[in-house]
C-alpha cells in the first residue's frame, strides 16, 4: 500500500500541475459559471421549481448536466489515455517497476490520483455554481436539496471516473499514445454525436411512416410535415420510434448519466436529441424516488467503471516489460 500512496501523491501532483488539467478546469469553470447564471435566470422565470433547477435548467446553451454529457468523456479520457503507454514508451515504466513496489501499486495509484483530480474538479465546479446562484437568486438549497446536490456530485464523480478508467484501458491496450488518443476521441464523438444520429436512423428505418403527413393550411389539406395532423396512427408510430431511439441511446453512458442526474435532481428532462416535444418535461421527484428511478443507470455506469478498471489491471499485471515494446 505504501507504494500506491507514493505513486498516488506523485501522480496527483502531476495532474494538478499539468497544463492539460488546468485547461480543462478553466473551460469547465467558465462554462459552469455560465450555466449557473442561465439556471438562475431560468429559475426566476419558473420560481416553483426550487434551487436544484440551476443544474438542469437552461435558457440557451448548456445546463450543468448537458455540460457533463458533452465534456465529461473528454475530461475523464484525457486524464487517463496516456497513463501507462506514455511511461512505457519513455522507459520510465521499467525504472519505476525496478523499485520494490508491487506492480498493482502503479495502476492503483494512477487511477486513484486521476479520480481524486476529477473529484476536485467536480466539487469545486458545483461549489462555484452554488456560490454564484445563491446571491443571484437570493435563496439557497433546502436541507433536502443539499442531499440531492451531494448525490449529484457523487454521481458525476463516478461518471467521470468511468471515462477515466476507459482511458486507462486504452493506455494499457495500445502501445502508442497517439493511438489511445485517437481511440478516446472516437469514443467521445460516438457517445456525444454519432450514437444519437444512429438512433434516429435506425428508429426511422425500423418504423417507417407509410403515409404522407398532411398539413392543413386554411381549409386545404396539403402534404408536408410542418404541422402534421396529429392522427392517432401518426402519434403511435412516433411514440414507437421514440422508444426505439431511447433504447439505442441507453448504450451511451452519457445518456445514462443524464437520465440519472435528472432523476436525482427531481426532474425528468426532455432529451435534447429527440425531436418529439413532450408536453410535460418536468415532474417533481424526491431524492429517494429519483434514486429508485435511476438505480439501473447508476449500476450500469458502476459496472462499466469496474469492468474497464479490472481489465486494465489484469492486462497491466500480465504485461511483459520489454523496452520499447
Amino acid at each position, binding site marked *: 500500500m505504501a507504494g500506491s500512496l507514493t*505513486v498516488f501523491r506523485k501522480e496527483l501532483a502531476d495532474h494538478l500541475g499539468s497544463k492539460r488539467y488546468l485547461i480543462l478546469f478553466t473551460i469547465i469553470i467558465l462554462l459552469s459559471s455560465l450555466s449557473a447564471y442561465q439556471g438562475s435566470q431560468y429559475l426566476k422565470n419558473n420560481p416553483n421549481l426550487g434551487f436544484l433547477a440551476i443544474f438542469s435548467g437552461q435558457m440557451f446553451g448548456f445546463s450543468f448536466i448537458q455540460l457533463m454529457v458533452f465534456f465529461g468523456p473528454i475530461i475523464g479520457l484525457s486524464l487517463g489515455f496516456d497513463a501507462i503507454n506514455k511511461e512505457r514508451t*519513455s522507459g520510465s515504466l521499467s525504472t519505476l517497476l525496478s523499485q520494490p513496489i508491487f506492480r498493482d501499486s502503479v495502476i492503483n495509484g494512477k487511477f486513484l490520483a486521476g479520480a481524486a483530480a476529477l473529484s476536485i474538479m467536480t466539487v469545486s465546479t458545483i461549489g462555484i455554481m452554488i456560490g454564484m446562484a445563491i446571491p443571484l437568486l437570493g435563496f439557497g438549497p433546502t436541507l433536502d436539496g443539499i442531499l440531492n446536490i451531494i448525490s449529484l456530485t457523487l454521481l458525476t464523480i463516478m461518471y467521470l471516473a468511468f471515462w477515466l478508467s476507459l482511458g486507462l484501458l486504452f493506455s494499457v491496450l495500445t502501445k502508442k499514445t497517439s493511438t489511445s488518443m485517437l481511440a478516446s476521441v472516437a469514443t467521445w464523438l460516438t457517445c456525444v454525436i454519432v450514437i444519437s444520429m444512429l438512433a434516429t436512423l435506425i428508429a426511422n428505418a425500423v418504423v417507417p411512416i407509410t403515409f404522407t403527413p398532411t398539413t392543413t393550411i386554411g381549409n386545404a389539406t396539403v402534404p408536408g410535415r410542418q404541422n402534421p395532423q396529429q392522427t392517432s396512427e401518426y402519434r403511435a408510430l412516433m411514440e414507437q420510434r421514440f422508444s426505439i431511439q431511447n433504447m439505442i441511446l441507453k448504450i451511451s453512458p452519457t445518456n445514462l448519466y443524464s437520465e440519472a442526474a435528472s432523476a436525482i435532481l427531481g426532474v425528468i428532462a426532455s432529451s435534447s436529441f429527440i425531436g418529439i416535444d413532450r408536453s410535460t418535461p418536468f415532474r417533481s421527484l424526491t431524492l429517494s424516488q429519483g434514486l429508485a428511478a435511476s438505480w439501473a443507470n447508476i449500476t450500469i455506469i458502476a459496472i462499466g467503471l469496474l469492468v474497464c478498471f479490472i481489465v486494465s489491471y489484469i492486462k497491466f499485471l500480465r504485461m511483459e516489460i*520489454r523496452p520499447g515494446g
Partner: protein
Amino acid sequence: MSQPVIETKGLTKVYGDFTALDNLNLTVNEGEIFGFLGPNGAGKTTTILLLVGLSVPTSGAATVLGYNIVRESREIRRNVGLLPDFAGFYEDLSAQKNLEYIGLLNDLSKTESEKRATELLETVGLGEWKNVNVEKFSRGMKQRLGIAQALIKRPRLLILDEPTIGLDPAGTKEIRELILKLNKEQGLTIFLSSHLLHEIQMTCTHVGIINHGRLVVCDALHNLTELLTESEGLSLELKIHNPTQELLKEIEGIVGVSRVLQKEDKVYVTMTSDVTLEISKTIARHGAYVLLMKPKEYSLEEIFMKYYEEA
C-alpha cells in the same frame, strides 16, 4: 566464499514458440564484476528481467542475494539496483525530483531521499544539473542518472543492462570509471550486460558469454584467456625486415614450432613449447632484422568468435 550473489539453475524463458533463454546455469559471487556478453537478442535483457522479478521464468529456479526470484522478487528489488535497458525518466521533472521519487518508492523518508538524491547526483557528476528537467539531458547524462537511480537504495548488487549503449567514447569511459570505482571503493558486486567485447574486457573480472539463449561459456576472464591459449598453443607475432623463404622454412624446422604463417608483412609462429629464443637466434643467423616480436595474447574478441563458432 559464502553464498553466491546470483545463482540460477536451469532458468528457461519461452515467449510463444521462441525460446529466449534456454537452461541457464550461472553463478556470480560477491565482489565480482560479472560481464554478460552476447549479441543483440541473445537473451541478456530477458535474464536480467527474470533476475529482478519483472518477468516470470517458464521453468528453472534462481536466487539473487538468497531470495527466490519468483516468490521474493520485491525483496530482490529492495536490495538490487537496476539500470534497465533504455532506462527512462519523467521528462517534465528535474533530475533531483526524479531521484527523490525513486527514493520514496524505496521507503526512504522525504528528507533522506532529498539528501541521497543530491549526494548521488554529485557522485555521477550531475551536480550542477540537478534542477534541470530531464528532457534537456543527453543520452550519457540520462545513463548516469540511471546509475544514480539504481544506487539510491544502497544496493548490495548492481545490475546494469547495456550501461554504455549509445554513448560516445568519452561517455563510455566515464561510465566505466564509475563502475570500477563503485566496485573498488564499496566492494559492490556488479552484473553488467553488453554486446561490446572491448568494454567487458576492460571492466569485468568474470565473463559469461550467451548466444541464442544458451550460456556458451562462463569463467574468470584470465582463465578464459589461458584456456584458449592452451587449446590453440603459444603464438608469436613477428615483423622481420625482408624475410626469405629459407628463413621461414628454417623457423618451421625448429623443434617446438608447429606452424608458420606469413600474412602481409607479418609472420605468425605457433609453438607447442616456448622456443622464442631459438627463433630469435635463427633470425639473427640469417642476418635479418627483427622489427617487432611479441607474444600474441588472445583478445576477448577471439574468445568470443571462437565460442560463437562452436555454439
